[in-house]
């Protein structure tokens, strides 16, 4: 093997160890193959999409003659060329056309060009003559509500107690509104698909997707063929973050239609700008809240509405807005509560999954309520948080009537408060600000409680396929996809641990709908929970057969058969694992198994708004300290301290990477990442030159990240670990609140600055001016 051996390759009990990402050596050498790097089939053609130039209306005429006749062009595709259903809606609502006739957002795909080169296709796409009947458009949530725009999907209400009476009788009451911006995924590898036609109806699609099974089904619908004719493959993505959960469907479908039509291999890869314009993002929210509370800050009632910019179609807006409501409580008990979602249609690209899936927007709304109470009472928001934590008599039921039975937030916050020296530093910040200088500081500690499981209960299942070849080498396949999160590494660790063999005897293989069918999206942080269990199940089936074989062949009892250190021990005898496998093969033992897992004990009645949608909760807490420049609004994060709960970690190094990365990504969402539409409904922040994600120099100057190593999952998850993909993103709410405190200092903390997100330098400066103008002191 032409690679440098990693020190972890030889580990046989690799769980809970810092095993390197299985592809690390290929990442650094440029040898990791992404779809655009694959050796191209002979005769490969390229497709490029033509996008609408209006935000709302219909196509009066579509003249593609110049496109057709452009150099290198073989043909075009429009809605009439689709053999099956012109729809890639993931929810079956038929509201997501492949090629639109009724235009609902600026940049909506309306046709495609097929050419010899990508450049030729792209150049030709610009030559289309399209006449539109333009209608007025709405891009903004508030305007959509004002104009009575429809919902794209059924809203949700969560209700417990009597919020209305609770608010009326509360000692204190306040209300307000918060705007929470969306976020582009900015995966470094943009969308891409390559389709290769086969015989009969067959087509094989390489798709950069988190959800190969859905791509398979969508391609089948669009081609009007059975799912068994379509095979979808993905070895790795260059980042996804939710942006490739449903958004890959369209690209795969277009590639497949073209492949079948021209009987040639087809590749589609939009330019970054088109990718950002034409694919969905995190939902923007408008949160209206009304809260009643006691003099000590304890909440007595909350009534809040979460209106979302869903874009032109439902996509995943239903479950996303549901999850916003599920997290509006964060770690706090609301005795009387009424939460409503409003999933508004807008003339913007349909928003979609993004790490946290609505949870962050719900949680940031909940934390704003805490902040408001703190400023109203003149207290440290941390005090308000503590008096509202779940726990104590009858105070452990969420607005969706699930009991919080694994709460560790109290201990996490207590430990972090001490380890980060929070109280002393807060005092120093207050003293600094008292000097009235241009640079102001803020500090904030915020907690996270995040529910783990798909709220679409049927998604909580997974499969794996494990083969042991007769030389003892192991082939691992599972339904999850690798997007950088280290899922394959973790599942391989589990498998190595089951068989007690070295990691490097396990081959991780591309996700493939022909190997494991009917998979769920790798999403909701569930990848290792589900697929780790499925792979363990497959291993256990094979092991059971091997134990049986050993008992028969060597006359030992089952408890005398041990897998250890690349060997199999039975009674007093030992065989090297490959030798033992060879013997089993010769005795005709089946050395392959399909594993399966489904999460137990979860149920959810959406109509009633009650159930146990989450198998367990993951917790965390962060302290952020920031400095702001009150002349320009610019800022930086001086320090962040994080204590996060991943249960018993499968791989502390990978988990730490998820926490650091999630925090910085969350920080970007709440600070510099701004989506901006012009009056024509065009997204103008559609490339890294205009859309600013954090840089190395934006990360906290001091960044202390620790795992709560005493935590273990109370549920029987894989090796008692907890999911880690999404929860850390919300730790960055501490940055927003620290900025808020720095702003509040200019008015002596008498007024809640009500910083909207993203708190760009402009947003910070304008808040400084507003508070100065209000003349507190």
């Amino acid at each position: 093997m032409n690679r440098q051996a990693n020190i972890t390759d030889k580990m046989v009990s690799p769980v809970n160890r810092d095993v390197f990402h299985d592809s690390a050596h290929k990442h650094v050498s440029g040898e990791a193959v992404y779809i655009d790097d694959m050796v191209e089939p002979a005769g490969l053609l390229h497709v490029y999409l033509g996008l609408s130039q209006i935000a709302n209306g219909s196509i009066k005429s579509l003249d593609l003659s110049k496109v057709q006749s452009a150099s290198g062009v073989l043909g075009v595709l429009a809605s009439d060329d689709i053999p099956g259903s012109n729809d890639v809606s993931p929810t079956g609502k038929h509201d997501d056309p492949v090629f639109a006739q009724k235009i609902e957002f600026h940049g909506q795909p309306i046709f495609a060009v097929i050419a010899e080169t990508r450049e030729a296709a792209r150049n030709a796409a610009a030559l289309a003559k399209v006449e539109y009947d333009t209608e007025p458009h709405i891009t903004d949530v508030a305007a959509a509500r004002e104009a009575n725009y429809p919902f794209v999907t059924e809203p949700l209400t969560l209700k417990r107690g009597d919020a209305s009476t609770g608010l009326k009788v509360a000692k204190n009451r306040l209300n307000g509104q918060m705007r929470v911006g969306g976020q582009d995924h900015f995966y470094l590898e943009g969308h891409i698909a390559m389709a290769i036609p086969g015989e009969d109806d067959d087509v094989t699609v390489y798709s950069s997707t988190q959800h190969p099974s859905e791509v398979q089904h969508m391609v089948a619908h669009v081609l009007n063929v059975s799912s068994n004719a379509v095979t979808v493959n993905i070895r790795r993505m260059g980042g996804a973050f939710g942006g490739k959960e449903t958004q890959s469907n369209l690209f795969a479908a277009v590639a497949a239609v073209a492949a079948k039509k021209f009987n040639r291999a087809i590749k589609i890869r939009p330019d970054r700008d088109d990718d950002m314009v034409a694919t969905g993002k995190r939902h923007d929210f408008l949160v209206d809240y009304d809260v009643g509370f006691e003099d000590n800050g304890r909440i007595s009632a909350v009534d809040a509405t979460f209106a979302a910019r869903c874009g032109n179609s439902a996509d995943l807006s239903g479950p996303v807005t549901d999850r916003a409501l599920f997290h509006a409580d964060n770690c706090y008990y609301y005795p009387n509560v009424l939460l409503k979602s409003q999933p508004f249609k807008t003339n913007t690209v349909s928003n979609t999954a993004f790490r946290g899936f609505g949870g962050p927007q719900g949680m940031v709304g909940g934390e704003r309520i805490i902040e408001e109470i703190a400023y109203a009472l003149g207290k440290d928001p941390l005090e308000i948080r503590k008096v509202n934590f779940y726990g104590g008599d009858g105070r452990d039921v969420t607005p969706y009537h699930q009991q919080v039975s694994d709460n560790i937030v109290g201990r996490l916050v207590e430990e972090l408060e001490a380890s980060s020296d929070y109280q002393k530093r807060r005092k120093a910040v207050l003293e600094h600000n008292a000097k009235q200088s241009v640079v102001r500081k803020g500090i904030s500690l915020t907690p996270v409680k995040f529910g783990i499981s798909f709220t679409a209960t049927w998604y909580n299942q997974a499969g794996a396929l494990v083969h042991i070849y007769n030389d003892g080498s192991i082939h691992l396949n599972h339904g999850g996809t690798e997007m950088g999160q280290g899922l394959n590494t973790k599942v391989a660790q589990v498998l190595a641990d089951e068989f007690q063999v070295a990691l490097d005897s396990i081959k991780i293989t591309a996700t493939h709908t022909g190997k494991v069918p009917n998979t769920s999206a790798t999403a909701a942080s569930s990848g290792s929970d589900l697929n780790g269990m499925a792979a363990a199940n497959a291993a256990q089936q094979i092991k059971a057969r091997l134990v049986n074989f050993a008992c028969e062949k060597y006359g030992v009892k089952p408890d005398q058969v041990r897998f250890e250190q690349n060997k199999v021990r039975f009674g007093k005898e030992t065989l090297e694992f490959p030798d033992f496998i060879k013997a089993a093969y010769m005795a005709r033992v089946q050395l392959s198994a399909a594993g399966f897992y489904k999460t137990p004990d979860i149920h959810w009645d959406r109509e009633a708004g009650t159930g146990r949608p989450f198998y367990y909760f993951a917790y965390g807490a962060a302290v952020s300290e920031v400095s702001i420049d009150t002349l320009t609004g610019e800022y930086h994060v001086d320090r962040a301290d994080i204590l996060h709960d991943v249960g018993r970690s499968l791989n502390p190094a990978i988990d730490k990477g998820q926490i650091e990365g999630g925090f910085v990504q969350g920080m970007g969402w709440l600070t510099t990442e701004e989506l901006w539409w012009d009056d024509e409904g065009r997204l103008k922040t559609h490339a890294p030159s205009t859309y600013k994600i954090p840089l190395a120099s934006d990360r906290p100057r001091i960044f202390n990240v620790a795992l709560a190593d005493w935590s273990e999952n109370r549920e029987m998850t894989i090796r008692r670990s907890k999911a880690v993909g999404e929860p850390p993103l919300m730790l960055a709410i501490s940055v927003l609140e620290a900025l808020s405190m720095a702003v509040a200092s200019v008015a002596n903390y008498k007024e809640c600055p009500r910083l909207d997100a993203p708190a760009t330098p402009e947003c910070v400066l304008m808040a400084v001016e507003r508070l100065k103008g209000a003349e507190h002191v």
Partner: protein
Amino acid sequence: MAKIRNQIRFRLNDQLIELDDITPALTLLDFLRLDQKLCGTKEGCAEGDCGACTVLVGRLSGGELVYESVNACIRFVGSLDACHVVTVEHLKSKDGKLHPVQQAMVDNHASQCGFCTPGFVMSLYGLWMTNPKPSNNDIETALQGNLCRCTGYEPIIHAAQSISKNGKVDDDPLILERQSVKRQLVELSDGARVEIHYSDELLIVPSSVEDLADARQNHPDSTIVAGSTDVGLWVTKMMRNISPAIFISHLEELHGINTKNDSINVGACVTYTEMQGLISSHLPQLKEYWNRIGGEQVRNMGTIGGNVANGSPIGDTPPILIALGATVTLRCGKKQRSVLLQEFFIDYGKQDREPGDFVESINIPLPAKGDVFAAYKVSKRRDEDISAVCSAFKLRISDGVVSDAIIAFGGMAGIPKRASDVEAELIGKPWNEENVSKAKASFDKDFTPLSDWRASAEYRALIAKNLLQRFFLESTDGNSVTRLNRDKAA
């Protein structure tokens, strides 16, 4: 007339490349990925902002071989004559051992999805070769042009700090082969003009400034390509035809920096990186500002001449140059003329140009004794972002009274422009808080800024005033803390 060669020649890793049938619009990235099938270099954005396509380009500069990180996505192959292109594929040793930079990235768990990783490896390689023990600040500066969406950067910084544990710079192949590569590049620099006709497109690499002047006069409709940090996007984003294209970044005569007592003269192709030393020694007031221009790759490619010639209202250097009273020398054939930079910018998209001319050099008077000078940039993200507003202030204060003032802004109008009403309000008056406050109101007479995705009109108007305030505070109390100091944070 110089002799003509119909071929671009350069070294790619350890191979000589000779091309005689390329369009001037061919980018290095497309050449690597589509033609050479070197797919380690990735396309993330095709506009020089994400760094996934980072490669090193070695070139002769003053007789030395210098390697710099550049964005292959907006670098044209036409600009690579007699250069050495080094891609990520070149780093592993023949026996398959990872390079010290690569090993450090692995050891520190510094890749997740891995797509940005080759770009980071190349940026860090470029840094490590000249700076094997970089400070935190050095590392961040070198990585300003590289985006990672997965890791939060922390492990990448740790990797950068630990590269030297895995090997010595002196043992690095590019250092060991330096002499032979240099010889080869010297040989390739044969003094010929390169001309490639491709279909109806024309690519010219002139042999000298004389030759450039000729070529430009013969092709007044040509696109002059220096650093290509702007022209690159004309091709990759606007799909514009840039033919006939004249590539000039290799012309050593345009890389000259001449320092006199009271002024400096810089050639049009001097890059931001090449200016770095001069900034430290002669214009230390600009040190912080300078590293906020683009990212490292863009500073390695982008030129002062280009920043002026493209006439953008949000270029980072024009306000500075205007405040310092710079003049630009335009050359047309043998004729040269000098224009005060503030007069060069006539209107949005319109500069004082003649057909067939080009920007040859810029003369920058240095602040005199008694001048107070400062420049400030405000952007949504601190580094590698286009200005919402950029500004430069130069005041002469005699006996506490403002005797002269130049205040120039970018981002406030259709061109880089002076705040003449504010200047007039300040001149002749004592430099004090009261007069500064009064003068601020005049910004509203000078400018009617626009609202766009970078900033609203209100915000722009407000920070213009606040930057004058900052300038006042800093000029009157050197100890006052008026800026964020990242190095002293926490």
